[in-house]
């Protein structure tokens, strides 16, 4: 049923939805109107379903989670962030969070689709027959999606803080959630992301301890580094030592670093089977 389109075509459609959600929000904001939460949510949800279909087709072809190259990893991070938004967005009823999330989704999916070299080759069966290491990778990338949403929340926090300090409260600043609400959302997202990444590392550790020869030191170093940085941020935030603007800037910087680290992680992996995309089919 889904094979009327290729996986990339489904993913293009999903990217189109995210872009439409973002542009629609931008249009509303420019006109001084609050972006409709319901409409934004609907557009993002439609994109989410389309992206799910695209990733499902990829995964079916791979026989596992589609995490075989930079393109797939970015798609998965975007999909994870949207998953969280579809839960968090309703809870906090923040139309601007939907607007920003659709922007992040559009950026990640369009960038990954546009740069062909990221999808020229892909490693298939990268997890072998081991479902635990696949779970480890999926959880790790899902946590990146959570951290992406945390970065967006941090942007909203910084904008709200600026608007209150500079006393610019009209226009689209008036659509921002309260500073305390944003702080609570940020803390919960950070806790969720750290929990997921911790679970990913725990699963990975069990696997690696059984077979230390397969440990990829670069991947291990980067993953542990990202986990340690976020865990330290969480500890400092809970201890009241990293607050307000500094907390928001830290979350933004960490996400940028985490995204950049995906490149070396992908490049350092030893494929069990390298193949062109066509060959994989």
């Amino acid at each position: 049923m889904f094979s009327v389109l290729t996986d990339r075509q489904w993913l293009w459609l999903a990217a189109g939805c995210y872009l439409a959600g973002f542009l629609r929000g931008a249009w509303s904001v420019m006109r001084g109107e609050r972006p409709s939460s319901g409409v934004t949510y609907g557009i993002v949800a439609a994109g989410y379903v389309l992206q799910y279909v695209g990733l499902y087709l990829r995964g079916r072809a791979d026989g596992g989670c589609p995490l075989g190259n930079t393109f797939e990893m970015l798609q998965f991070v975007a999909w994870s962030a949207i998953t969280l938004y579809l839960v968090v967005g309703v809870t906090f009823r923040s139309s601007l969070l939907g607007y920003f999330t659709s922007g992040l989704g559009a950026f990640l999916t369009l960038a990954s689709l546009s740069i062909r070299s990221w999808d020229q080759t892909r490693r298939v069966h990268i997890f072998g027959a081991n479902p635990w290491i696949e779970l480890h990778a999926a959880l790790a990338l899902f946590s990146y999606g959570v951290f992406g949403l945390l970065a967006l929340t941090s942007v909203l926090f910084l904008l709200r803080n600026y608007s209150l300090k500079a006393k610019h409260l009209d226009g689209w600043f008036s659509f921002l959630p309260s500073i305390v609400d944003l702080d609570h959302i940020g803390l919960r997202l950070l806790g969720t992301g750290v929990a997921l990444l911790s679970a990913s590392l725990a699963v990975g550790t069990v696997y690696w301890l059984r077979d230390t020869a397969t440990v990829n030191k670069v991947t291990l170093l980067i993953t542990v580094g990202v986990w340690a940085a976020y865990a330290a941020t969480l500890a400092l935030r809970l201890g009241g030592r990293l607050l307000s603007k500094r907390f928001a800037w830290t979350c933004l910087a960490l996400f940028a670093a985490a995204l950049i680290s995906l490149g070396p992680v992908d490049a350092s992996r030893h494929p069990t089977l390298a193949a062109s995309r066509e060959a994989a089919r």
Partner: protein
Amino acid sequence: MSGPGFFLVGATHHTAPLEVRERLALDSEAEAALGLELSGLRELREFAMLSTCNRVEFYGVGADDGAAARVQAAFCARQRFDPVEFEKFRLRLHGRDAVQHLLEVSSGLDSQMLGETEIFGQVKAAYAAAQARGAAGPLLNRIFQKAFQAAKHVRSHTAITAGQVSVSNVAVDLAQNIFGNLAHARVLMVGAGEIGEKTARAFQSRGALALTVSSRSSERAMELAGKLGGSALPFDQREARLAEFDVVVCSTAAPHAVLSLAAAEAAMRRRPTRPLFFIDLALPRDVEPAVADLENVFRYDLDDLARIADRNRASRESEIARCRALLAARTDVLWRQVEPLLAHRTANPAAGISGCPV
């Protein structure tokens, strides 16, 4: 004078000064008695009375061109108001203009505080009262229902209700921008004057529960705390216990600052994760301006609040033309539906108020 049909007669803040409106205002007893009297008018098919502090208006469907005049005469007699003098203040509209007026009133477009939403509830109450007394028939039903729809449409599609236009409400809006739900926000009022009380009431109206009053006069603090259902704090403890509060509203007449930078710094050290919001309504100012530089601390003074209120007011005023155009389009559609029904209703002598289907 126009012919039979839909009319409005009354006086509003646009046509009558406050001292006249005071004399024209209908209390509930007078309204009930007048309602009964108007129900007996043969030439009045349907009617509704709207009485607020800014207007007293009668919307009616008359069988002849004398209906509005009879309503006006009955009202003047009830209020013991000279009918000749009333002519100087009265507003009388007919047909489509009366319909558009009702739509504008319901939308807050005709209100003294432009865009306020309380009038919507008042118009609804007036309509409900007309229904209860059997004075609202098919025409008023349709016109009022459409007026409510139009008001909701205007509110949600324009910025006519955006932003607060009074200083105390602007302050509460700002607190919501910082804390969101105010139910858990602890508010300290430093100073127990009129503006402080007004602001405290604005906080209460938006959900703030924990109010504490501190004043140089402990009696005055206790009195205001009693009125607000809050508690009093000795004035000399205001700085030492600052960390216990989220919002601090200052309005003393002290000649110097009563809350220092050092006190704010000490408070933030004890509560680093929660913002602290100072609303300084005093002149000279009560809070040292440098507190605004502290992280997670926000400070707004009277000028800041007045500037925001002025901007909101200007923003609402800039929406008037757009709102009128939206309402005019809806009035045209409604009038096209109502006019034929009106001809039938006013031509049917048997259809008195008692026979009105509600």
